[in-house]
Each structure stands twice: as C-alpha cells, then as structure tokens.
C-alpha cells in the first residue's frame, strides 16, 4: 500500500503555546472550574429534562419504530452524560452510559426489552434525588444496572 508522508509541520497552536505570557495550569483550571460552577444549576435542570424525556418514551409496536425510539433513548442518555460530565456526577454518567451500552448492543432483528429503558430512567431519577451522603444506596443502584448489562449484553464493554 502506498504511504504518502507529509512533512512534519508545526501548527500555529504549537507556536502560540510557548509565547511569553499566558497562565499557569493551576490558574487555568481554577478559572475553568469557576466558569463551569456558574453552569451547575442549569446542568441539573438539563439532566432532569433529559431524564423526564427518557421516562416518557413508550415502547413501539414495530421494529422500525422501535429503532427510532431507541435512538432517541440513546440521545437522551448521551445528553445526560454531556451535562453531568463536568460536575463529577459520576454515578449519573455511569447509569446513562450503561443504558447507552445496552442500546448499542441490542440486536436489530429482535424486539428490545423496553423495561431496560424504564429501569434506567427510574434509576436516574433516584440518583438525582438521593442525598450526596447516600453513597451505599448509589452504589447499589449502579450495581443493579450493571447486572442488567451483564444479563442482556454479555461480553459488552462494561459487563466484565
């Protein structure tokens, strides 16, 4: 196979980074965290919106319609990860990623067990309402979701 190698070139970014001035990593991270902190309340509202939309989805009568609905469920779960990610809401991200894995692993030629979506929506709601100190309850919720993944998608990315 032909391999064409283009000359190494320095990007303008690589020149800019070493120019005098700028900020230290510590300051940059503090500034980024302060900026993000101002968005935390909105993030929670977005997560609640996405979980409500996920819970409102109903199983579809046909395979074609089911595929479309599963894509929507996948999008809602992804949106939860998007919004929760920067705020160390790891359990919410893990629960949403679990559902993404299950939808991703679903065979296209068979009906999807819609209870999986319902259970994940309920789990996400529960995680949103549990107090921060309820670590054990959170762990249990996540463990039960992992069990679903192991049962429904053996060999999946997080089922090991």
């Amino acid at each position: 196979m032909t391999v064409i190698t283009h000359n190494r070139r320095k990007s303008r970014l690589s020149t800019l980074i070493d120019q005098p001035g700028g900020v230290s990593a510590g300051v940059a991270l503090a500034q980024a965290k302060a900026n993000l902190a101002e968005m935390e309340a909105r993030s929670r509202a977005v997560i609640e919106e996405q979980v409500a939309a996920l819970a409102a989805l109903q199983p579809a009568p046909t395979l074609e319609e089911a595929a479309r609905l599963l894509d929507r469920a996948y999008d809602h779960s992804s949106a939860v990860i998007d919004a929760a990610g920067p705020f160390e809401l790891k359990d919410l991200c893990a629960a949403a990623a679990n559902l993404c894995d299950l939808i991703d692993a679903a065979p296209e030629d068979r009906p999807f067990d819609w209870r999986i979506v319902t259970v994940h929506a309920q789990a996400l709601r529960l995680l949103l309402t549990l107090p921060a100190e309820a670590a054990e309850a959170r762990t249990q919720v996540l463990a039960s979701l992992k069990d679903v993944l192991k049962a429904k998608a053996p060999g999946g990315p997080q089922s090991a």
Partner: protein
Amino acid sequence: MRGMNGVGESLRESAVFNFNGAVTMVIDDSPFALELTAQAVLGFGIKVRHSCSSAAEAIAVLRDHPVDLILVDCEMPGMSGYEFVRWLRRSGLEPNAFAPVIMTAAHVRRSKVSEARDCGANFLITKPFSAGVLLERIVWVARDARAFLEVGDYFGPDRRFRSEPWEGLERRSEEIRKAEFEAQRRASIEL
C-alpha cells in the same frame, strides 16, 4: 489516534502556557454541551471564535477562515463528527486540513470505534471528563509533532506511537521536554 490514557504526562500546576490568540472552533449540536466546552476552555485563556451547531456550519466557516484548534462532538445529526474530520483532512484547505482536532464523545457506539480511529483526528476524549483532562489534551495536541500520513483511505496524524528508546543523542524537543519534566517530577518526590 491516541486514547484517554495515552498521554503519559500530567500537567504540573506551575506549567505555563499561552493560548491567547488561538483561533478556536467548537462544533456541537447540543447548545448546552457547546457552552460547557466554551466555558471550560475560556478558563484556559482560549476564547472560542467559531461556535457551530453542525458540521455544515463549520465547513462554511473553514473554507474562509484559518483555525488553530477544533473541538468537535462525535455524534451529530446530519454529518457526524467522524465524517466531518474525514472531510477536513481531505479538504485541501491550507492550513485547516492539518489543524489539531480533538473529538469529544459521551459514548462511542461499537460500530463507530474504527471510524473514531480512522477518521484522522488527533485525539478522542470520552466523557465524563474533567477540565484538567481537557486542558491536558489541548496541551498535548499543541505539542503533537507527528507527521501526517496518507495511507489508503486514511489521512491524518501518524497513528503509530513508538515507545522504543532512541539509542543515539536525543534531539527531539518534545522528548527532551518530557525527560526534563520526568526528572523534575522525580526530584520533587524525593524532596
């Protein structure tokens, strides 16, 4: 493309960098996710010049404006992030075709793993990620001196990472910098 754990160099708090003036583009169909990214990088001194809600919008900008850094979401309706990066690398646009690209993903579908590896991006970050991880990856791509290769359908940074030590005198600046960093890190532990 390098994965999440491949950087191998954590940023020191005192490490100083300057991204002022870097023309940055963020592409995400989710307005909230786009704003989160923009606010995080603003903390690093990077003002997002071009906020695009679709690949099509980004392409229109890239035809006329050079950019220094692109952050693009993988999953978008219409043209996906993977398709966008593949287009960019083959676009022939100078210098944009060679611009550093970081892809972000809430979840990568199994069917898209090879697409993520082969589209030509410099780095893929999977969410959730902290501001620290994002900063570390931006610094990493800024220092990414890999050659660009055209191999069959692939056009992008060399995907091979050689880990064998070079036996001669090390002259590569990034390797010297890493060695200096490692020496400082070890010294700080021994103090």
